[in-house]
């Protein structure tokens, strides 16, 4: 039997029906049309599906949709402010931190969770924060640089 689930998605109240045992990733992608979290391994080992739940990074392919009930979900789709990109998105572009782009939404959300709680991370802390996210293309260095760059840009704004 389907159940109803409601939460805020990037600041907007949303509601959807979910099958029993349906994951948050599936609800986001298939029922709410937010395809920005990617379906990679669907078993919790690649990080492509990373979204923020009340500000914490979670693997939405492992999380049952029910777990989001009444909570705050953020995906990379909600990051830009209209046409203005988030400093993380800008830094990823400027540092050539995406090639195929499949890991990018998860990387950026993992990075956002880090910068939200630790605006001035060390290189090691950046590495730690993205260590659950697999990238097949970039060799990680440009991603690490982009996150450090975004932290500097965010600091310059404050």
């Amino acid at each position, binding site marked *: 039997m389907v159940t109803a689930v409601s939460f805020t998605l990037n600041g907007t109240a949303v509601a959807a029906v979910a099958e029993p045992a349906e994951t948050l990733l599936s609800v986001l992608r298939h029922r709410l049309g937010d395809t920005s979290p990617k379906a990679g391994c669907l*078993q919790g*080992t690649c990080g492509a599906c990373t979204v923020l739940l009340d500000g914490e990074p979670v693997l939405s392919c492992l999380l049952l949709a029910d777990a989001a009930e009444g909570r705050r979900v953020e995906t990379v789709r909600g990051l830009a402010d209209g046409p203005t990109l988030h400093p993380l998105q800008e830094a990823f572009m400027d540092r050539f931190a*995406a*090639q195929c782009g499949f890991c990018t939404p998860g990387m950026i959300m993992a990075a956002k969770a880090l910068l939200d709680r630790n605006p001035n991370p060390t290189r090691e802390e950046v590495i730690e924060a*993205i260590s659950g996210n*697999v990238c097949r293309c970039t*060799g*990680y*260095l440009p991603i690490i640089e982009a996150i450090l760059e975004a932290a500097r840009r965010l600091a310059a704004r404050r």
Partner: protein
Amino acid sequence: MAKHRGRGVASVNYPIGMNLGGDPSQALVHATPTGKFVVTLSSIDLGQGMKSVTRQLAAETLGVPIEDVHVDTGDSDTGPHCMGSFASRGTHRAGNAVVAAAREAKEVLLEVAAEELEVDPRDLELDGRGNVRVKGAPARALSVRDVAQAAHFKRGKSISGRGMFLVPPSDVDPDTGAMRPVTTYAHACMIVDVEVDDETGEVRVLSIKAAYEIGRALNIGLVEQQLVGGAWMGISHALFETVEPYYPDRAHGPTDFNGYLMPGPGDMCPVEIEIIERPALDGPYGAKGIGEMCATPPIPAIANAIEDAIGVRITEMPFTPEKILRALDAKRAGR
């Protein structure tokens, strides 16, 4: 029990493209009624930047702003033929086709503009900002948009071009076995420093320094991106990745990312790259290709560095702790 440092070097001559039965690629370029250009090709962008480079090549050849070029790689079934995005051939093969197509389209563009301006097309040039003007008399100009409008609605002309690049089949000389499978090679030399733990058998790559000669670097950001990503892939091939660790025994093969290990962000060493530009005679604006070659030199360089560090030669990839420890045991036993 100790950690040993070693240094290894590797060089690579890399053939751009391939040639079994000929290596062709085609491209089509056409102007829309608003004076924007569309390049249609089947060379797929899988993150390596085929679209960016195509836009650059078409804009440069046509003489229009890069914003005015759109690339459609939507469908290899219905698009112009391309052998594919592999063999480091995209920039060189498809790029040459894009340049040829853009040249032909530019000829029509200038013909129509010449009719409109009542001048000889040879006296016209593009200003790179979206206008066609008379050489030496820039006040006599028309926007590319107006030329496209005139072509579409007044002159009945299609501002379009066909581009084809073919490296013809190369036959093997029956006497000598010689053949010329490719027309250009890229080159690189890499120095890798490693640290090998003789107790755990673990190899850590400490630094990668490389010089790459790749013809003209059409887009330096994309080139560096490929080379850094390739360095990681090379480390991964050398030290981590295998689907059949005990081949031909299929046992213990990985089935997911938990078992199929690759270096993570914390395993990456600093990568220093020097790019040497030595334009290829037959490349689009001198470009060669860097697709596959960037993942190859780390493998022999790491093998050489391991040998330098602990005096054993590992000849099978990946160079896992198990293989290192077995080789050290054999060395100690005098085998």
